[in-house]
């Protein structure tokens, strides 16, 4: 049987559908994008083949770098704010007894509502004149704290980051929660017998055993920061004055709004390169084996 599975022909046949799919849907389009990134393709034809798109991006395009900075900022916010809270919540809910189930549902609900709906909801909540947030601030006598949450170029990016974190919280939480649930209860019993309290158990047993999940989650979070598109597009469209531009929205705006498909392709190629590099670095940094259990 083993010999059978090892036979190359069988392996080739079995992976062929997946491979074809990846080649056709991922690798081939990427190759086309790479080719077009050297052209001034405008959706109809092109007459140049050189490095001018990349030159423009690296030397003159400050919006691109702002977009990259925003993407990284979001990734960092995920890692430093969203995930520690998610881990903490996951650990806490496992100790919540009869509240465990309702809490779990409550925390996960935002993730199953469509991004479109939650984004529009936040746009209404953050509206300057009629938004709930500003009205609540006025009601409690803090009207000086009122802000133009999405219309002020200096603040809008933080509003976006907050909403994106809120939207992604459920999934981050769920992965950690499942990770914790996967830790056998014998370990808990053994730790209690050895005299550990709950805090010690959490710090010395759960966290280390959760490391593989955390690692995956971190990589996913950073990549999600890079890939952020729909929330921004729905909430501010990259504005005001490009202050909330992310790589995804900027790519869209250059390719489809300005009709510069060649330039858009160049951005997308850099996009892929950044994602690969970041994933590689993250994997190196977080590489650490965990004992089996």
């Amino acid at each position, binding site marked *: 049987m083993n010999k059978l599975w090892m036979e190359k022909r069988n392996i080739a046949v079995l992976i062929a559908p997946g491979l074809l799919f990846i080649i056709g849907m991922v690798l081939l389009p990427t190759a086309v994008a790479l080719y077009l990134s050297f052209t001034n393709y405008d*959706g109809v*034809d092109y007459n140049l083949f050189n490095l001018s798109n990349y030159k423009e991006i690296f030397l003159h395009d400050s919006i691109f770098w702002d977009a990259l900075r925003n993407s990284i900022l979001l990734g960092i916010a995920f890692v430093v704010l969203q995930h520690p809270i998610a881990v903490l919540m996951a650990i806490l809910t496992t100790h919540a007894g009869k509240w465990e189930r309702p809490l779990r549902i409550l925390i996960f609900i935002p993730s199953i509502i469509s991004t479109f709906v939650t984004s529009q909801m936040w746009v209404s909540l953050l509206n300057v004149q009629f938004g709930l947030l500003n009205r609540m601030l006025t009601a409690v006598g803090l009207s000086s704290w009122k802000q133009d949450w999405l219309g002020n170029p200096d603040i809008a990016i933080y509003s976006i980051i907050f909403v994106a974190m809120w939207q992604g919280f459920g999934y981050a939480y769920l992965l950690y929660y499942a990770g914790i649930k996967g830790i056998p209860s014998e370990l808990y019993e053994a730790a209690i017998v050895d005299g550990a309290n709950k805090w010690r158990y959490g710090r010395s047993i759960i966290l280390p055993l959760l490391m593989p999940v955390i690692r995956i989650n971190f990589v996913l979070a950073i990549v999600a920061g890079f890939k952020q598109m729909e929330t921004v597009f729905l909430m501010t469209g990259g504005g005001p*004055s490009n202050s909330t531009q992310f790589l995804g929205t900027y790519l869209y705006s250059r390719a*489809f709004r300005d009709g510069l498909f060649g330039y858009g392709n160049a951005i997308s190629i850099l996009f892929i390169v950044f994602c690969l590099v970041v994933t590689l670095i993250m994997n190196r940094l977080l590489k650490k084996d965990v004992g089996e259990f």
Partner: protein
Amino acid sequence: MKKHLNALALIMVIVLVVSACGNNNGNSNSSPSKASDPATTATTATTATTETPDSNKKVEFKFFSNNPDRTGGQGLAEQKLIDQYMSENQNVKITVETLSPDPQFQDKLKIYNASDNVPDVTMMWGQKRYLDPLVKNNALVTFTKEDFAGQGFIDAAFDSFTLDGKIYGIPKNTDFLVLFVNKKLLADNGLEPPKTQGDLFKITEKLKGTDIVPMALDGRDSWPLALLFDAVVARQSGGFDLYHKAIDRTGSFNNPDVVASAKTIQEMVKSGMFGEGFLNLDYGGARNLFGQGKAAMYLMGEWEMGISSDANFPEDVRNNMIVIPWPASDDGKGKTTDLLAWFGGGYSVAAKTENSAEAKKFAIWLFKKENWAKTVWQNGITFPAQNYDEFKTGKETQVQNDLTNILGSATIFSGANSQDLFSTSTAKSYLDAITEMMASKSTPENFAEKIDAIADKSYKEMNP
């Protein structure tokens, strides 16, 4: 065993491949490109001959519109006429696809063009930057002025749809920038409709502390900001030559009048004229603000003339709406009779589709004066680019009459507005620069230099 496994693997692969193909077929059948799929069209044609033997070939084509609301405004006019055409021509079936707001519509049209899939009849904007990519791709049918002889078109209306002497679209509206005013809201606060830009500041000052926004402005889409900029520059410099010359490079944006205009606009923002958060207020949001009586004025084009008959808004607001031109400058140099007016929207017909000829026939029919011009005027929807005098009923709304007067008394017309004159790839930078200036992210001087550089780049792109 091995044999079995081999067979199993083979079956799995075949199943996967076949189901993938099946999906593809399903997709192409249900996709909107139905009409251009020769196989599908062929089948429809055969069924047509069996079902309606007396009529000619059954034709089906797509109408791509930027008006999702088919029960009011221009969407209603389009739908009424489409329905009428279908009932007059039983063999024709017109399906409607809509998408809004305009920038998204334009994005999708670019994709349709890039994939050679332009809908048979589509909403189109005049000016080179919209038309050029489609014309370059030979995607559009050409018209002649004779096609519309006797339909009362204003002669200049076709100019913006004309490229190298050929007409690629039919203009549908005479567009101009105006100020919708809720005169009761102003009167309640002891104010009158503004006559000069100085009055605007006075109104803003007086309304401070109330929760009324002086002027609703759609800042998120940024194109209305550019119209505001055009209007203020026109008042400052006493005409529309400044931006026309700056864009065709016989003049420059790096000009004291531009700097002064930018300063005025920044002061307007700082005074709170547009309310807080206008930079993230979208089209519908600004319209609602005014329609619900939360804003005293509303800066928009004449195409919103239906707002005074929009049943979604309180009667109290609708009955008190008037329309005035953008106020004059304080020094009297820029007059209200200088009107920012252009022929913006229209329709084009795709050249590469199966039913292109039928679609063209429909488009020409659509613009018979008793169809488009009469429908839009008598339903209070918009200003046609055709003469509509014979369709006046005497029952026009206050807003309609005000608009007629503004257009009738204008002595100088701007022609195209500034943003439409930029090349495709620079138009957004131009709009961004205006947004930045309004967000006080750049000084008036920097702003003038910046848009001058953009105008230079645009000129070089359009005249290689």
